[in-house]
């Protein structure tokens, strides 16, 4: 069954979109991730214009992060103070990201930048996760303890310190604001929540306790993705409500099964699997960047004033 998307201006199969939403939702429930970085490339492969894919994807991120944040709210595993500091950075990052997006679209380089940023992040994070999980699997087999992370002391030398009771931290607000800013910019350009960047940053850089990291990142993502979605609507008219709705429905259903499936799999193997998926998507996008395109020329409707 086909449905015509009013903003993307093309017909798509409802079942394909629902299945994609469900598949990404399944992985997102399984790995506890937003899934935006999986969905945006899939939408682009399907022929949705990259601008619309990124803009629309923010609605799916809002839906899945609201579910995640609510679950962590009931478990009281959100550091609201840290979340707000991250959010402050995220808001500025999102706004500047939207304008960067617009500028890149105007000079014709947005598709390239989206692809390059995706390839860079997917391959780096995928490789890091793969190495870490393989080491952990080996260590578990060999009976050795996993190596302890080293301490970052330069963070403690920065000014504007603030006390975060929930995270048991007394650190400068500069690193979390910067982390938030960076993730907000990525959210606007990539259509992702940015949890896959923020969570490692919170653990390794800010040294937050792991039990509050995921809830706090969901809390930040709800608002940053919401703002990004509204901004993409206002500035680029790039949010397709019909596409977003279908993705959300598929995602919500898929996530339920993903959560259950994850309970049956050991955490380290799960992480290795996610790393493999990230690397595969990164490779595919990277191949598209370097392989000779079938037609070197592309046509796009120009802005009437430029």
């Amino acid at each position, binding site marked *: 069954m*086909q*449905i*015509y998307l*009013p*903003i993307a*201006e*093309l*017909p798509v199969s409802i079942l394909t979109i629902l299945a994609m939403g469900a598949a990404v939702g399944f992985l997102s429930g399984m790995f506890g991730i937003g899934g935006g970085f999986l969905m945006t490339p899939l939408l682009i492969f399907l022929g949705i214009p990259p601008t619309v894919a990124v803009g629309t994807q*923010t*609605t*799916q991120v*809002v*839906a*899945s*992060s*609201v*579910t995640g944040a*609510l*679950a962590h709210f*009931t478990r009281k595993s959100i550091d609201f103070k840290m979340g707000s500091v991250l959010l402050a950075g995220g808001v500025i990052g999102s706004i500047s990201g939207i304008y960067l997006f617009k500028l890149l679209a105007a*000079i*014709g*380089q947005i*598709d*390239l930048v989206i692809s*390059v940023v995706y390839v860079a992040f997917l391959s780096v994070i995928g490789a890091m996760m793969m190495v870490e999980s393989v080491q952990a699997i080996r260590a578990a087999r060999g009976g050795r303890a996993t190596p302890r992370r080293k301490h970052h002391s330069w963070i403690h030398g920065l000014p504007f310190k603030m006390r975060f009771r929930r995270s048991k931290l007394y650190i400068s607000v500069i690193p979390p604001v910067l982390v938030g800013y960076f993730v907000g910019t990525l959210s606007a350009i990539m259509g992702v929540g940015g949890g896959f960047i923020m969570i490692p940053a919170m653990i390794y850089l800010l040294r937050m306790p792991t039990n509050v990291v995921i809830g706090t990142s969901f809390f930040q993502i*709800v608002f940053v993705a*919401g703002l990004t*979605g*509204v*901004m*993409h*609507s*206002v500035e680029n*008219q790039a*949010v397709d*409500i*019909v596409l*977003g*709705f279908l993705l*959300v*429905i598929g995602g*919500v259903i898929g*996530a*339920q099964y993903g959560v259950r499936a994850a309970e049956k799999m050991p955490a380290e193997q799960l992480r290795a699997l996610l790393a493999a998926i990230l690397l595969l998507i990164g490779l595919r996008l990277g191949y598209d*960047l*370097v392989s*000779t*395109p079938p*037609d*070197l*020329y*592309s*046509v*796009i*409707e*120009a*802005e*009437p004033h*430029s």
Partner: protein
Amino acid sequence: MMLRAAAVIVALLIAALPARADQLVTDLSEHQIAIRSNFTGTEILLFGAVEAARPGSRALNRDIVVVVQGPSRPMTVRRKEQMAAIWVNHDSVTYPSVPGYYAIASTRPLEVTADAETLKALRIGIENIDPGTPTARAIDGTLQILPPDEERAFWKALIRNKRREGLYINVPGGVTFLGQTLFRATVDIPANVPVGLYTAKVYLLQNGEIIDTISSPLYIDKRGVERFLYRMAHEDSLLYGLIAVFVAAFAGWLASAVMSRR
């Protein structure tokens, strides 16, 4: 059914017309195409008749050419070049007025219908579209002047891309005569068609000379929910964005409410 009704209308129109030179009488099966949520493309039927000046005379070398053209907009063609192994959009050429849709159908291939100058002067044929004066830009946005053959390559690429998308169509033999006077042509309207005011022009040619031309409007627009959402996204984009985000947030809340009940 549609054809028979058309034939009756055409017959009535012929009867009402005074007979001088050969004249055209045409109409479209639809003057409005609505893009709704189930739109996956359609086709329109153009039909008509040639009202002969001297009834009974057998027409030789008579051709019908049908051109359906969509609204014109400025369009940019970009060419990728390999920079440090990566393919990057490099030079670009912007044309101020490019039809978003152009379909041409004729009784015989265009080359045998009329000579190249006539076709060029009348802008009949995909190769003869006039896109206005192009402006070429380098990767950094500065204006540059391209040699004519390079510029030609950009224009050819535009046509190639539009053909691939099914938006530029050329159907030699797409117009068929039913007997001596009646003719018909079907024109494909793909799903990715731009909205706006279209014109369907019919040319009657005799021995390569244009004898008569007739033009009818065709309006393609989004309707119903599609129209409502599209207009809202463009005119009330703040409200639209807020609704999109709140609906998503609500779905997320609903999911967690359902999950926690289990």
